[in-house]
């Protein structure tokens, strides 16, 4: 490695192999980010997530290039030259580390900016979550630092590959093998899928940033440890990194909340005038299409005790119950086939005990309910959703029941639904009921 004697630090940064990786990795991240946009429902939360999540792939890739840079530095000839440089070993290590970090951050800034700017024309709902971008930058730095340490201590041709694969698997293992509260937030690859119903817990993102910064600084300290840097410098860097990482870890693990603040605050439903379909403001532009999609199901349940005066979009899972007297439906994006999926999910939820749909089956204990995916209930769900292929009767008796049900008129089916509500909800329906 040739070192420019006039400005060795700048020369090392400009010679970094990461400069060749900036554009290809940014392009890969753009491809990845594009896959994560939820079609038809543009929100800044989703755009931020699309900008952040590629770190799971691109972080280990950038770390591998950092490891490659460090392998050069780890060779004896280069290290001797570094030791003789005017600023000593500490400055040399810091230059290599800074070079890798600078190019990695540049790559992230490039793809994040392009992904966010590409959404401006869609007029997304909400605001960009800046702390999420900051914590993602710190996560990237932590990975690059880990890659550089590996390359420095193990300067072989395998170091880049091992850095990429091992970091990818470590990130995955931290997410997949939970031992601590909020442990997933300690992984550089963790990225929560957007849920517009909830606000993001911003303090935990700052704690994440602190944790990752600490890890990055510890990496630098480990690299310094093997060089003839002043002991005081080594200890100071190590203490700074350890303190930051410990503080971040403590804040994340002891935080009572997770990535989201699970409260429905900061937004009010927006409703259509005639059908009373009420949605989160992020879905406001899609109301006419949602109206159109739900129209067949709402027509089928009209004049039955499954109908309601209001149909509310809610999130799935926690706090997903609709307000009193309303029926809940769920929608993530307007991706191909969404209209059929929306109707089918609503129909199945309505017929399933304890599904928090707000319908008559909601009050029944759903522990023993097999749901409406197959069997007799699926015949009714398929009719409600206008999706005949979703009817999956089991055996000859149920097939006979389906053919009898198919022959009924619309009004007769509605009357039948009204009369058999209790049997449907308690899962005591049998073929003879049809």
């Amino acid at each position, binding site marked *: 490695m040739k070192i420019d004697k006039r400005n060795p630090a700048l020369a090392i940064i400009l010679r970094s192999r990461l400069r060749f990786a900036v554009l290809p990795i940014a392009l*890969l991240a753009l491809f990845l980010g594009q896959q994560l946009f939820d079609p038809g429902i543009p929100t800044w939360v989703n755009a931020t997530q699309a900008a952040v999540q590629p770190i799971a792939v691109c972080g280990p890739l950038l770390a591998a290039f950092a490891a490659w840079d460090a392998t050069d530095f780890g060779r004896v000839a280069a290290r001797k030259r570094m030791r003789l440089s005017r600023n000593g070993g500490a400055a040399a290590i810091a230059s290599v580390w800074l070079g890798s970090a600078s190019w990695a951050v540049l790559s992230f800034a490039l793809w994040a900016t392009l992904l966010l700017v590409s959404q401006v024309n869609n007029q997304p709902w909400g605001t960009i979550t800046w702390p999420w971008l900051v914590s993602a930058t710190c996560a990237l730095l932590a990975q690059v630092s880990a890659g550089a340490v590996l390359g420095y201590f193990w300067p072989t041709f395998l170091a880049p590959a091992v850095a990429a694969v091992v970091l990818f698997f470590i990130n995955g293992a931290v997410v997949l093998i939970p031992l601590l509260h909020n442990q997933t937030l300690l992984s550089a690859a963790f990225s929560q899928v957007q849920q517009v119903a909830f606000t993001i817990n911003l303090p935990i993102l700052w704690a994440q940033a602190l944790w990752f910064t600490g890890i990055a600084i510890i990496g630098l300290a480990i690299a310094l440890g093997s060089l003839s840097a002043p002991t005081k410098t080594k200890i100071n860097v190590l203490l700074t990194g350890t303190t930051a990482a410990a503080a971040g870890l403590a804040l994340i693990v002891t935080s009572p909340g997770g990535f989201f603040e699970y409260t429905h605050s900061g937004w009010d439903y927006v409703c259509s005038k005639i059908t009373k379909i009420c949605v989160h403001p992020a879905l406001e532009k899609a109301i006419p299409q949602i109206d159109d999609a739900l129209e067949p199901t709402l027509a089928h349940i009209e004049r039955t005790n499954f109908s309601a005066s209001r149909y509310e979009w809610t999130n799935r899972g926690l706090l997903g119950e609709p307000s009193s007297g309303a029926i809940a439906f769920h929608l993530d994006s307007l991706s191909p086939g969404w209209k059929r999926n929306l109707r089918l999910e609503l129909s199945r939820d309505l017929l399933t005990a304890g599904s928090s749909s707000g319908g008559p089956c909601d009050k029944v204990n759903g522990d023993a309910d097999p749901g409406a995916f197959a069997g007799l209930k699926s015949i009714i769900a398929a009719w409600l959703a206008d999706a005949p292929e979703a009817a999956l009767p089991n055996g000859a008796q149920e097939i006979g029941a389906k053919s009898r049900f198919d022959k009924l008129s619309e009004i007769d089916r509605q009357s039948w639904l009204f009369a058999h509500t209790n049997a449907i909800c308690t899962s005591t329906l049998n073929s003879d009921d049809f």
Partner: protein
Amino acid sequence: MLLRFKVSGFLPLASISLVLIIIGAAFQTLTIVIPPSRVLLVPLPVFAALPAAVLVGYIGANEPKILARTAVRNLSLRRLLEQCLATVIIICTALLVANLQPQGNLIAGLRDFIGLWGLAGVARAIMPAKSAWFLPFALFATSVVAGTNGQSIAWWAWLVAPNDNQSALAAAGIAAVIGAIAVAADPTRPKH
């Protein structure tokens, strides 16, 4: 011949790959759920295929360039033969020591192993020899992170497709053939 094997790193690289694939085969019923809501089930042999394929792709990658300039015989062809030999040994051993499960997880792992090895060969042809890991890793990680929307698997994410997916099998085969051609041709070989 033994010297050649030593220079190319055949024994250590092939042995580690073999161990990885055998571990994958031994725990082939173990599937890993990729969170959060973009649900994907990836069997362990598929994860083992990535490092194993990259290591096999590295056979011969670290040999001095002077060898290619001075060798009487075509080293690229030898490198291809060594990598193919390692691949065959690994696949046969995995099939011998592990029973094939009805889920076919081992089949998916071996399919990916062959495909990723091909990608490593392509990466070596278009990038510096030590970058053989780049393409396999980039495609694997991208497939795991964004290869599915929870309902279907993207056409390019064949690495995480079920074992009975014919398109995925074809993609792996094509990648292997192109990779083999790339290793044999070796456009980065120094001119005599």
